[in-house]
């Protein structure tokens, strides 16, 4: 017993300070990078030109816009606004549903753990193509192809939904708990049964959440792509601003805000319920 305790060093022989090892080991590299970042920041700030006279001239013009908001006019362009909102909501809902319907097979095909290599590569390419352009650029393309109006908007948003939903769904499928898949596979289940019993229950809450989220992104996007001619409330907003009718524009923006808030709250509620 006594012998044993002699072998253990007393507390005073241990170091009493400890520091977390730094992320970048070499001090030269570490401080060099700090210095470089600092230089870049200083040079960057020096190149920014601020024209104070333009800022001061801009303030009153901005004020006209803001005062339009203080007195939004819902009525004088009421018919156009109502028409635009209806068009946008139709566009949003139809494109989201079409997008979800197309995303599910593409998403399943783009999941490495379920799809064979050729299908995986095809589906990943579809996703990459639909994701490579911003909505506005796709909208311009579709307006050129099918003409002005909500059809172009519907096509744009459907494509954008595929890029978003199929990618996130595929990644969610790749992250599922493999032991559950293994268990269903070991019962002798077919591929479709495997999807239905092992994959779907695991990804469904996230798929519903993402779909709700995409619904409200699509509504916001519908307002933006309207500006390039793809119909909906965006077109109405664009006309109002072009005619300097800031009071009508303000009314439109307020309606957009209210609809986005509503869909935000309802999608949050639904996402909580499906966990």
């Amino acid at each position, binding site marked *: 017993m006594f012998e044993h305790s002699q072998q253990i060093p007393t507390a005073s022989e241990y170091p009493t300070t400890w520091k977390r090892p730094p992320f970048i080991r070499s001090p030269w590299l570490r401080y060099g990078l700090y210095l470089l970042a600092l230089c870049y920041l200083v040079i960057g700030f020096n190149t920014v030109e601020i024209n104070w006279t333009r800022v001061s001239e801009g303030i009153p013009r901005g004020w006209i816009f803001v005062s339009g908001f203080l007195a939004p006019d819902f009525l004088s362009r009421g018919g156009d606004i109502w028409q635009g909102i209806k068009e946008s909501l139709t566009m949003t809902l139809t494109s989201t549903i079409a997008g979800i319907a197309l995303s599910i097979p593409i998403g399943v095909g783009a999941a490495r753990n379920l799809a064979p290599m050729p299908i995986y590569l095809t589906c990943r390419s579809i996703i990459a193509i639909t994701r490579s352009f911003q909505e506005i650029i796709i909208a311009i393309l579709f307006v050129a192809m099918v003409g002005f109006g909500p059809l172009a908007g519907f096509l744009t948003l459907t494509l954008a939904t595929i890029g978003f939903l199929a990618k996130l769904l595929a990644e969610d499928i790749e992250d599922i708990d493999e032991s559950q898949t293994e268990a269903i*596979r070991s019962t*002798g289940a077919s591929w479709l049964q495997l999807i239905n019993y092992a994959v779907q229950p695991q990804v*469904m809450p996230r798929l519903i959440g993402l779909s709700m989220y995409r619904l409200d992104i699509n509504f916001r996007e519908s307002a933006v792509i309207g500006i390039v001619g793809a119909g909906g409330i965006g077109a109405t907003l664009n006309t109002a601003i072009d005619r300097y009718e800031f009071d009508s524009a303000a009314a439109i923006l307020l309606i957009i805000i209210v609809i986005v808030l509503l869909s935000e709250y309802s999608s949050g509620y639904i996402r909580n319920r499906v966990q």
Partner: protein
Amino acid sequence: MLHLQALTKQYATGDLALGGITLTIPAGQVVGLIGPSGAGKSTLIRCVNRLVEPSGGSIYLENIDLTRLSRSQLRQARRRMAMIFQEFALVERLTVMENVLSGQLGYVPFWRSLLRQFPAEAVGNAFATLDRVGLTDHIDKRADTLSGGQRQRVGIARALLQNPDLLLVDEPTASLDPKTSRQIMRLLTDVCAEQKLAAIINIHDVALARMFVQRIVGLRYGQVVFDGPPENLDAAALTMIYGAEDWTGTMQEADWGTEPYDQLDPMTQNRLVPA
């Protein structure tokens, strides 16, 4: 009933998990497969139902060589070999009943499983099996609301719904407390005796294995180094399987553990050992 002939498995990383295993398991025999971590226990049972593809050798279930089956033949063969998992591998968001009925997936067409319209006989069998494992009160609960012991009972019920001839059991008790472990092992060996099932049970707990199985196979570095009744598993044999260590504790616990329990199962209020 199951015969492994010179079964080998080399992983893509070059690790030789199984180095030519030859093993015969007659119908209705319960075999405990023991060995240190990495000895190839898990690989062995996953090779049998080809969740892991063997690299060489043959596996005969009756007279079918499982290593030469096509996809659809493999699905048919898998129905006869039910698997039970360490982390239970239940589909968390499905109900207990859906999990149990998923054992029938290899027998029913896709539309029946999709609409949850299983044949009346299967549903009756599921209710009876749930009663046998003592889960009658939890049928419509989601699997993720159950305790560890209850989940493993669902896992056993799912396996039984496959009407198997052979159970492949991977560490059934590693996630359970000692008492629940014994209850689960007892349930497993009892149902094997009732339904005349053969079983390979991977298990770390040597004392538990000695208590419940008729035959013990010891693996080390992918080779069978022990094969015999539990009585023959002495300190020398354990050293051969696991390496040198003081084994007296393990041996004593086993002796103490063979005494029958005379108490009630807290869930089912059944006597744990039938009188």
